[in-house]
């Protein structure tokens, strides 16, 4: 009996110590691991960027230029206050075009695997099993980049806990977020990954697109991410054209009938 009590007590103490250790200092200049938003809804963000959702509130109105507003009106989203029936929308991601960047982070951001090498940091995303690379070898952004779905990214550590990423060269066919906010090829972005401790970091993302927006705006403001166990099995979540077609045939197209 005494041995059993001693054994159980030891287990509890071990678990307590292990948990305390988990709160310890973060490793320096290292984001390696599988991270996910602390609040799942922050990453999924169906109505648009977490800190500027398309919810009709005046404080979330984006500072569009005339060109930006015209581009917005061309995007028919099936989410948000101006949503249309699924059969009437024109979301490029719903025909399985790449979400691209920044939408990959502003919509359906789920478990994301960060891998660091001496030359680059890679982010492997759950949604569609796509990845992006962020050069960390000291190079700058290209001055006249060709557009790419995920743009061109460079990053550097500004202190032991803060990794700052700059991106340009994105493809204007992609939407900024799930609400259909547009962007031009002039879009530049800054992401700040700030590690708070072993298990937590914050992500702030600012978009600057003078062609479509009169001033920079903050899409994510200190969104918290948590470190998942290294054995986390990331579920498969793919956009399949045949599955989309079947969903539209059986369901979405019927909802749009007048």
């Amino acid at each position: 009996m005494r041995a059993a009590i001693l054994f159980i007590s030891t287990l509890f103490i071990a678990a307590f110590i292990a948990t305390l250790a988990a709160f310890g200092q973060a490793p320096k200049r290292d984001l390696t691991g599988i991270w996910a938003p602390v609040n799942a809804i922050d990453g999924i963000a169906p109505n648009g960027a977490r800190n500027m959702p398309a919810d009709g509130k005046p404080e979330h109105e984006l500072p569009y230029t005339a060109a930006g507003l015209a581009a917005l009106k061309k995007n028919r989203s099936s989410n948000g206050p101006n949503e249309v029936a699924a059969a009437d929308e024109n979301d490029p991601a719903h025909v399985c075009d790449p979400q691209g960047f920044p939408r990959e982070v502003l919509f359906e951001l789920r478990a994301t695997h960060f891998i660091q090498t001496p030359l680059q940091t890679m982010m492997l995303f759950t949604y569609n099993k796509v990845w992006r690379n962020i050069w960390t070898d000291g190079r700058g952004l290209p001055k006249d980049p060709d557009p790419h779905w995920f743009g061109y990214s460079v990053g550097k550590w500004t202190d032991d806990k803060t990794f700052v990423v700059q991106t340009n060269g994105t493809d204007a066919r992609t939407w900024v977020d799930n609400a259909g906010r547009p962007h031009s090829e002039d879009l530049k972005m800054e992401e700040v990954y700030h590690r708070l401790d072993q298990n937590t970091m914050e992500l702030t993302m600012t978009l600057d697109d003078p062609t479509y927006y009169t001033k920079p705006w903050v899409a994510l403001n200190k969104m918290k991410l948590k470190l998942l166990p290294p054995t986390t099995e990331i579920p498969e979540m793919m956009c399949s054209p045949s599955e989309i077609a079947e969903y539209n045939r059986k369901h979405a197209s019927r909802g749009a009938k007048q």
Partner: protein
Amino acid sequence: MKKGFGIWVFSTWMMTFSLVIPGELLAHHGSAIYDNGKAVVVKGVVTEWTWSNPHCLLEFDVKDAKGNSVHWVAEVSNPPDMTARGWTRKMFKPGDEVDLTLVAAKNGEPIGRIVRVVVNGKTYAGMGAVPGEAKQ
């Protein structure tokens, strides 16, 4: 005690508490087509269960007031989200009797979004809250 084990213990606890995903989500497609203020309660017989993206679909037949069979198609979210709610790829099979609470299309088409389903004596939460009912 290795630090890595501590991380694992803590993270596992954190993940357990964070896997619950809000019920209002239909991340890829919204709810514009639905009459979200009205719950529709039906009994049906399953004909097909499709466990796939972008949304899982349950097909079932319902007898209307005249005794005619009406074929319904109702959606929930994607497999990863539904897995987090305890749903599985094999939870329905053709011939299963189901009690469903839905929100249905405004246009009268027999399509909907499952808010709650009872199958084989077990109740599962679907998407969103039952209209007119306090959230669970």
